[in-house]
């Protein structure tokens, strides 16, 4: 059970003078239950890539296999794929439209053709899973704070019971506590519900803290893949393509240069603390 992207290329406006090659022969594999991070500067092909994963865009060449089946096969049911691979776009709260939060979450399962009881059960469960306060279930979504609206939007996708959840910058514009809450929630859903999480992010600190594996996109190509600590070893190359490493990585390198024997692979505050204390002999 996995997603395999095999030499996928994609061109926007292929037959016109404005042809832009957004993806160039990208190949990657995502295993069941992984927490994946995708980073890359604006225009590197991140969003184009994730829109291929649930069939919103069709590759100009190459193949995508979901659980061993080619999603471009003539008899493949794309609607089914979209039920399994849920997508939370940037600023998902802009997509809330129903009169109450509960109704909004019901919208997805309703379109899956489920019966009323099942729909309501799922909506209830999904709102519970995102820790949305019960007293607000039947309030209109428009009076909520940014972070709460975003929870409702994520619940709306969760209620469809996806196997894979893709989120495009889910923490943009949230305050630090809101950011930690959403990311903690994703890690929890991965752990407890076994959902595969694919997170597109501009925050190196966040991906270092939360994801199992990272894909770095640059100019439509896959530049690096691996665990955060492996990827951030290339911090100089990452800077050249408009990215960065977490602040901690830079600190480790500076301490090493000054002769303190710290572990250069530390990428989170906690890892840094451990290695500095060890190096100081405490």
């Amino acid at each position, binding site marked *: 059970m996995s997603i395999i992207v095999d030499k996928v290329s994609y061109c926007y406006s292929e037959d016109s003078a404005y042809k832009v090659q957004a993806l160039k022969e990208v190949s990657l594999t995502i295993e069941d239950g992984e927490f994946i991070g995708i980073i*890359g*500067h*604006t*225009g590197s092909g991140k969003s184009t890539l994730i829109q291929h994963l649930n069939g919103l865009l069709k590759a100009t060449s190459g193949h995508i296999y979901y659980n061993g089946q080619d999603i471009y096969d003539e008899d493949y049911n794309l609607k089914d794929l979209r039920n399994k691979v849920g997508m939370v776009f940037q600023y998902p709260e802009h997509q809330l439209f129903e009169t109450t939060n509960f109704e909004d979450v019901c919208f997805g399962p309703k379109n899956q053709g489920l019966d009323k009881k099942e729909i309501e059960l799922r909506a209830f469960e999904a709102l519970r899973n995102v820790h949305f306060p019960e007293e607000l279930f039947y309030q209109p979504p428009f*009076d909520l*704070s*940014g*972070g709460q609206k975003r929870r409702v939007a994520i619940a709306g996708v969760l209620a469809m019971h996806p196997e894979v959840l893709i989120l495009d*910058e889910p923490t*943009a*514009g*949230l*305050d*630090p*506590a*809101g*950011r930690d809450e959403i990311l903690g929630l994703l890690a929890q859903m991965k752990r407890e519900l076994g959902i595969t999480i694919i997170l597109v992010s*501009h925050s*190196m*600190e966040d991906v270092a803290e939360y994801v199992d594996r990272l894909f770095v996109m640059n100019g439509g190509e896959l530049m690096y893949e691996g665990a955060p600590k492996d990827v951030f070893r290339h911090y100089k190359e990452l800077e050249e393509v*408009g*990215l*960065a490493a*977490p*602040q*901690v990585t*830079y*600190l480790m390198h*500076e*301490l090493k240069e*000054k002769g*303190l024997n710290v572990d250069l692979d530390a990428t989170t*505050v*906690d890892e*840094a*603390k451990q290695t*500095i*204390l060890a190096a*100081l002999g*405490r």
Partner: protein
Amino acid sequence: MGIIKTKNLVHEFFRRDEEGNVEAITTALDHVNLDVKEGQFIAILGHNGSGKSTLAKHINALLSASDGTIWVDGMDVSQEENVIPVRRSAGMVFQNPDNQIIASVVEEDVGFGPENIGVPTDEIWERVEHALSTVGMKKYRAHSPNKLSGGQKQRVAIAGVVAMEPKCIVFDEPTAMLDPNGRKEVIATAHELNKKKGVTILLITHYMEEVVAADYVYVMEKGKIIMDGTPREIFSRVSELKEHRLDVPQVTLLADELRKSGVDIPAGILTREELVDAIMKVK
């Protein structure tokens, strides 16, 4: 009096039912007092819904006060005849660059503001040229804005404000939608405007790293200013900030953690250099 001064500024939002009766009142600004000196670089922190953006909109006369007074460049914003002059002295840059760009060519977009206030054509071009070189986007003057990166678009939006020659610019989360490079570009531009042109800057942000180089920081919660001080003073209070749903820069947090583990490191470390020095000292 500073360039921006508020005295007991209050703003209330009313929620009404279908008949227009008031259902609920939200106090977004609750007796805010602040005094910003000309040429300062000010940062405003606070969680979502704390009143930061409401305050920003008062500075540009986009909202009017329920009670209290705000003066911008000495002018009382509540006076009808002051609204236009206030908007000329205080420019504003918003979060999403795509919502602020209206023309199909970069230089025309930057010229839109001055054209609207009746600047003579020759001077418009001078201002456009000057504004674009201030933000480092002169090379792109004849380009279409939709082909630019997020950071570049945001810099074009800043140039549009610079071309109005305001004394003060309010940045409302200008980097929330940008990648690391774009964030650096925009923050560096804000600092340059402040240092070289003496423009007063008010920066609203959720990225604690961007606050480090500010002159003074205000922290808002529930429409009130609950903390104020230099970045060093503010970021020394790690646990207090966390209670208010805020954070400190990663190096400050690490310094705090190390200190709690018994390493002799001073409070209020703000930069990597400071932390490296402090650690090497106790080695």
